[in-house]
């Protein structure tokens, strides 16, 4: 992603968070503020995606992109599972839980990638937000099937789970705000633009500061991490990112959107999926799945992989490597 991205305040605040936590500073963002910023970012990204779709309309590739996203969300956990059980030596339960995380997506990784690709002149399409939302849940389903097989759990547990999966807060807020954007359109957006667009990148800076703090603290406390798992947490985003990007190019997405699909595949969930696993697979160890997704894959994606994926997309769509 070149020099420009690494000197972007967004990335620098993330690095500051990492450094502060590694140095054992007590710097801390109140949880209510972090949660508020997370909701704000989802509402804003959903809304902006919807506005763009209202402006530009949908081209034929949107359905292909949705299908590609959901398909990847269902299949990536399968090979991730075998890797985690084999190379990673995890138990069935833990391997399934981790696999679900890698099949799903991270909103903030996506948002950071959109900022960077837009800076590089390759803004992804607005409908990629809908693709993102549709990729949150399928992997949870895949993960639970891997863990328990068909027909597990009692009726009530299943209902609670279906709700958690289908109506999880991120999905509802992303899709809801997206729909509002489509309905309200550009002139409805004008009034709320200073809030949802003007201050967006600044809020993202503070949110990434917090993510850096949390990611670094978690890995310092981690007990269950092994080198095998660290390797997998870097291998999976590389492989998934390459597959997703190629898939995007194959179905005819533009450079930015193909790269965005790659980033969605490469990213690992650290909000929606952990919440679902806490509910449905309480035996799985959060010390494994959160540390892998949050403390290894997330920084790897933000600092390195977003750049690699962008270059791959530029190369595959014939645009050459994007200028830094």
């Amino acid at each position, binding site marked *: 992603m070149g020099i420009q991205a690494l000197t972007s305040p967004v990335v620098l605040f993330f690095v500051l968070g990492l450094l502060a936590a590694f140095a054992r500073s007590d710097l801390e963002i109140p949880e209510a503020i972090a949660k508020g910023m997370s909701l704000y970012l989802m509402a804003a990204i959903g809304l902006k995606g919807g506005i763009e779709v209202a402006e530009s309309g949908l081209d034929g590739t949107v359905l292909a992109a949705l299908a590609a996203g959901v398909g990847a969300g269902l299949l990536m956990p399968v090979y991730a599972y075998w890797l985690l059980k084999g190379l990673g030596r995890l138990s069935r339960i833990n391997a399934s839980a981790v696999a679900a995380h890698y099949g799903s997506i991270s909103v903030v990784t996506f948002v950071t990638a959109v900022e960077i690709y837009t800076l590089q002149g390759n803004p992804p399409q607005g409908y990629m937000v809908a693709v993102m939302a549709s990729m949150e849940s399928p992997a949870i389903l895949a993960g639970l099937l891997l863990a328990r097989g068909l027909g597990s759990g009692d009726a009530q547990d299943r209902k609670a789970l279906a709700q958690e999966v289908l109506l999880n807060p991120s999905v509802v807020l992303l899709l809801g705000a997206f729909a509002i954007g489509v309905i309200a359109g550009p002139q409805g957006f004008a009034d709320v633009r200073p809030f949802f667009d003007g201050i967006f990148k600044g809020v993202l800076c503070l949110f990434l500061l917090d993510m850096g703090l*949390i990611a670094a603290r978690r890995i310092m406390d981690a007990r269950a991490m092994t080198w095998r798992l660290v390797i997998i947490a870097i291998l999976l985003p590389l492989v998934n990112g390459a597959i997703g990007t190629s898939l995007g190019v194959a179905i005819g997405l533009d450079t930015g959107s193909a790269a965005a699909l790659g980033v969605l595949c490469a990213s690992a969930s650290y909000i929606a999926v952990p919440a679902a696993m*806490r509910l449905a697979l309480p*035996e799985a160890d959060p010390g494994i799945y959160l540390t892998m997704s949050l403390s290894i894959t997330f920084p790897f994606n933000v600092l390195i992989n977003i750049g690699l994926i962008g270059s791959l997309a530029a190369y595959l769509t014939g645009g050459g490597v994007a200028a830094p």
Partner: protein
Amino acid sequence: MIETVIRKRIEILADQAQARRVTDIIDKTGITGWTITPVTSGKGREGRWREERVMGTDKVFILTIASQENAAALAEKLAPILTSHGLLLTMWDVEVIRGERF
């Protein structure tokens, strides 16, 4: 002097995500109510944690006041999932006023 009766106070430390499951079991045991209070951080065999509601890793205390029989019934129902669901349960006798309510 005001009259008090002895009831059991049960306190369960649970993942936020498991709270609903626990309160459903309390309700089904026929206990009249429960109260949930927040927890900030902790340390156990699996290491230290801090509240990180963004990531859904936080815990809560679930308190309930019950008669001795209901308390025993509740402990019986929760025992099988204590380890798998990472719950911590303690209980002790307390004096309450208006004992007919519990």
